[in-house]
């Protein structure tokens, strides 16, 4: 333990610094005096004796310092000294400090906030046991139900069971229903329904993930081994807190979802949000209950009702390649083994070509990630550039200040301070600046994070993502802060200490050093301008894309339409029952009769809500051949509500009932695909893959094409069927209104509740907003990049202003001489402005190729224009020039107001 007692002695010394220094000094003085006495006794004169003693002793100051260093605290002492000194220096030039801190806080804050979101969406691993061992079958980017043969994205429950039983590569296998059921359920004993997001999972879900409950038990395989008789639920910690006020007696509480009452058997741990990033179910229910949980999807025993995601935990030592070959072997075997497999030529060919891709799911599943990974990366690059510009700015300010301090630094160097010591001091000052800026930045980020999440959520409830500041984020910020300090502090520090000592000391200002510094400052300004141009053009491109997206013709009139969701299945209605149809018709009639309402209709979908599609068969087509068509199931008033123009034939009418001929209205594009040569009216086709007679429909009308899921999409095949003939559990209800939104929205909800007060109504908004939500990612990027683009330009202006002010001050006497020789004030003004314009032009010349190269990366995010869009490029350049000229005008004017007499006297 020698080192320990040594450390203790060192610490002791640190606390008794002053005492120790005094002791040492006394000791040394005694030594010299004793030596002097010795000499005097030997007969030397007192004067000489003192000199000799001092000579023999050596340089007292140096020896003191050496002894001091022996204790090993000098780094700390000099750091503290530098910090205190830096603090004083910051206070001494408050304007510089405020500008620097502000730009640092914005720069570091923006980086922290964006990284926080990026981390939450893309990088963070699931809070489960060994997430790296988790593998997903397929790519995880599909959700819904399909009966398509040999799909690799979604699987049926019987398929999952066979895969679970027969594979040799997974220690555990689990299935997740690919959709979350948005249910309006009742907590046992309550009469008001509340929204609950239910995630159906296999009984093995929690054991596969290695997640334990904090109260009660998890689901187990037995909960999932026979259909319909395991009404149990594990609830999320957040929901336990929110809805049950953390009731410790939670295991005796029940839930009613649809017609079934469920026992709560456990509470998941607080950090566990499921397996989909950006979605946080309130509860998990075994898949055996799939038909009981509204909207009652079913398909538990159906070999080809494919709606599940399957994940497995790799056995130790099994590679992903081994897993892949085993899974693909079983994929074929299981599908071919199903007795009801339709082994047509086409399907067999498809099976032969299909390979199940395996995807690591350490970071979980996320549709959010697909939508936002590119925008977030772009934004990360944008804020990094902004921070770089801020760094250039601060470097410039520090350079200017170090010129003002050059005398001080020269004196210190002349007195023997080592250059490294001074550089260290200047860097410490920079670090201090950066750290204070970083602290402000983190404070800013904690607010910006929530704002960002709201923007990303696109006006709905905030996406459940944890974007709070955690250790990981703080480490990132700390790293950024240190990097920042190095970037903006290093060059000025090295510059400032490279002095012509004598020149500096003599005149207080040295022409040579200054011109070198000028060049450096100008280079910094040029790079700022170049970077600003990149950001400005980027922002311009995104903003124009946004405008283009807003102006896309959707095919329907998105203005003045109210839309809301009515969850009839949670209120006990079943699709297709007469009671259900009557409810829909009654709501449509009563709402249509309201004042300020022109039309109202239910529909399966409107825009950007997913779709139901199937391969339809037109008589005369070859066997096995089909054309993919999207279907919408709507009320009689749908076309009127959406104002989709009818091009030929007739609209639906109340006489189209469940017993009349099955009819359909098709879109223009569908007409061209299905009936390229003939008039489509009166023609018929079959919806099925199975060609069942009840799936045969007759075309009664053709309407204009509409956008279905995405504003950028090409026209798709789409048909409309009346809900009287095709049962559907409706979500969507649309109302075309005039006047103000709020009173109409209130009146519509009142009317619905007057018909059945238990009908849950959600997502009351306008169609316009719903359309806008489909390009939330573009909007977020456009708004933020515009903000940061402006910030970049603003920072660059500060840079230009600072440098030019400095240049003007340095050249006061030159200007004075020129004016004395007869140059007019306008000429002086122009002289300075010209210099600014030259700087900015060089910046633009460098910036343009960089911009063109950089913007190609973002072409995916653009809509309706190319990354090389000349209008954007030119306008960004012009704006930059104008703004730079404004920033430079003040120093230029100052130059023109120089009084030659004063200027020359200065010399």
């Amino acid at each position, binding site marked *: 333990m020698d080192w320990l007692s*040594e450390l203790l002695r060192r610490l002791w010394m640190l606390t008794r610094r002053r005492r120790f220094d005094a002791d040492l000094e006394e000791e040394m003085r005694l030594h010299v005096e*004793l030596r002097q006495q010795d000499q005097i006794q030997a007969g030397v004169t007192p004067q000489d004796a003192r000199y000799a003693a001092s000579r023999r002793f050596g340089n007292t100051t140096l020896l003191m310092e050496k*002894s001091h260093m022996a204790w090993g605290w000098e780094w700390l002492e000099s750091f503290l000294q530098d910090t205190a000194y830096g603090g004083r220096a910051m206070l001494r030039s408050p304007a510089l400090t405020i500008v620097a801190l502000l730009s640092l806080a914005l720069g570091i804050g923006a980086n922290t906030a964006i990284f926080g979101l990026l981390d939450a969406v893309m990088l963070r691993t699931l809070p489960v046991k060994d997430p790296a061992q988790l593998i997903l079958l397929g790519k995880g980017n599909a959700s819904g139900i399909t009966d398509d043969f040999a799909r690799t994205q979604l699987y049926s429950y019987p398929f999952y069971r066979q895969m679970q039983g027969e594979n040799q590569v997974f220690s555990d296998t689990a299935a997740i229903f690919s959709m979350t059921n948005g249910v309006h359920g009742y907590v046992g004993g309550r009469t008001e329904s509340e929204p609950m997001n239910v995630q159906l999972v296999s009984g093995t879900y929690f054991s596969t993930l290695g997640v334990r409950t904090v109260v009660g038990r998890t689901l187990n395989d037995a909960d999932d081994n026979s259909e319909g008789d395991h009404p149990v639920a594990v609830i999320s910690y957040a929901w336990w807190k929110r809805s049950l006020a953390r009731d410790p007696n939670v295991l005796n509480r029940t839930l009613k979802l649809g017609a079934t009452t469920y026992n709560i058997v456990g509470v998941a741990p607080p950090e566990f949000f499921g397996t989909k990033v950006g979605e946080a179910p309130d509860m998990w229910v075994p898949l055996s209950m799939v038909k009981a949980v509204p909207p009652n999807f079913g398909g538990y025993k159906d070999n080809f009702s494919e709606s599940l995601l399957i994940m497995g935990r790799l056995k130790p030592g099994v590679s992903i390649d081994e897993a892949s070959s085993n899974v693909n072997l079983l994929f074929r075997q299981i599908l071919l083994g199903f007795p009801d497999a339709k082994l047509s030529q086409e399907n067999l060919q498809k099976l032969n070509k299909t390979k199940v891709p395996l995807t690591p799911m350490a970071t979980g599943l996320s549709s959010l990630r697909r939508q936002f990974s590119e925008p977030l990366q772009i934004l990360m690059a944008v804020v990094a550039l902004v921070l770089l510009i801020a760094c250039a700015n601060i470097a410039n300010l520090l350079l200017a200040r170090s010129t003002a301090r050059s005398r001080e630094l020269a004196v210190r160097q002349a007195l023997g301070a080592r250059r490294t010591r001074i550089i260290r001091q200047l860097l410490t000052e920079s670090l201090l600046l950066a750290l204070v800026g970083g602290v402000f930045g983190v404070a800013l980020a904690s607010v910006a994070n929530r704002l960002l999440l709201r923007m990303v959520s696109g006006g709905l409830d905030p996406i459940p993502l944890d974007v709070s500041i955690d250790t990981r984020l703080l480490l990132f910020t700390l790293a950024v802060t240190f990097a920042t300090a190095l970037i903006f502090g290093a060059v000025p520090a090295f510059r400032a200490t490279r002095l012509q000592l004598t020149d500096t000391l003599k005149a207080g200002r040295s022409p040579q050093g200054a011109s070198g510094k000028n060049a450096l400052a100008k280079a910094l300004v040029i790079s700022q301008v170049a970077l600003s141009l990149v950001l400005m053009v980027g922002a311009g491109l995104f903003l124009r894309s946004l405008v283009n997206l807003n102006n896309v013709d959707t095919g329907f009139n998105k203005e003045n339409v109210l839309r809301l969701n009515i969850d009839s299945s949670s209120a006990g209605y079943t699709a297709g029952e007469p009671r259900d149809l009557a409810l829909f018709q009654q709501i449509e009639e009563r709402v249509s009769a309201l004042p300020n309402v022109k039309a109202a209709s239910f529909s399966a979908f409107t825009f950007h809500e997913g779709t139901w599609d199937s391969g339809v068969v037109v008589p005369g087509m070859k066997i096995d051949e089909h054309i993919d068509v999207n279907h919408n199931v709507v009320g009689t008033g749908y076309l009127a509500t959406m104002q989709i123009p009818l091009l030929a034939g007739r609209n639906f009418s109340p006489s189209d009932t469940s017993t009349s001929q099955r009819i359909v209205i098709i879109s223009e594009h569908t007409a061209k695909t299905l009936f390229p040569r003939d008039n489509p009216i009166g023609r018929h086709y079959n919806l099925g893959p199975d060609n069942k007679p009840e799936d045969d429909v007759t075309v009664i009308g053709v309407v204009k094409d509409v956008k279905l899921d995405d504003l950028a999409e090409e026209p798709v095949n789409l048909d409309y069927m009346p809900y009287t003939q095709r049962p559907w559990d409706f979500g969507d209800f649309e109302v075309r209104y005039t006047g103000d939104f709020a009173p109409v929205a209130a009146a519509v909800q009142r009317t619905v509740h007057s018909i059945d007060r238990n009908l849950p109504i959600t997502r009351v908004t306008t169609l316009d907003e719903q359309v806008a939500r489909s390009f939330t990612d573009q909007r977020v990027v456009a708004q933020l990049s515009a903000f940061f683009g402006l910030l970049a330009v603003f920072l660059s202006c500060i840079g230009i202003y600072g440098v030019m002010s400095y240049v003007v001050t340095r050249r006061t006497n030159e200007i004075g001489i020129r004016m004395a020789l007869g140059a007019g004030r306008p000429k002086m003004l122009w002289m300075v402005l010209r210099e600014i314009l030259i700087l900015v032009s060089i910046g633009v010349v460098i910036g343009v190729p960089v911009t063109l190269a950089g913007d190609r990366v973002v072409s995916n995010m653009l809509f309706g224009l190319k990354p090389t869009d000349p209008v954007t490029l030119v306008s960004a350049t012009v704006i930059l020039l104008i703004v730079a000229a404004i920033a430079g005008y003040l120093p230029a004017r100052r130059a023109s107001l120089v009084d030659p007499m004063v200027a020359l006297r200065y010399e």
Partner: protein
Amino acid sequence: MHRDEIPPGTLYLLILKTLARVGEMHGYEIADSIQRISDDVLQVEEGSLYPALQRMLIKGWVKAKWGTTAGNRRARYYQLTALGRKQLETELSQFERVIAAITRVIQTA
């Protein structure tokens, strides 16, 4: 009078040995003693004694306490610790090994 610089690294050894011989000394006495015993051949730059003593204090080889000199002045007296004695042995044997080796090299010629 010709004075030789002491070989580098032997300053600790000299201080340790001197203290071991006498017991308790202050800085000036140590310097003086080294010079006298070496017949003024070994010349310590006297000041450099103090950084060395500081390091030895940290290492725990010596301990110090304040006392008064014969001339009634306050002085800091240094004393070997057990650790210091052990260090002295180490340094001595190391020194002897080196000297023996050097001697062998010189005599072989």
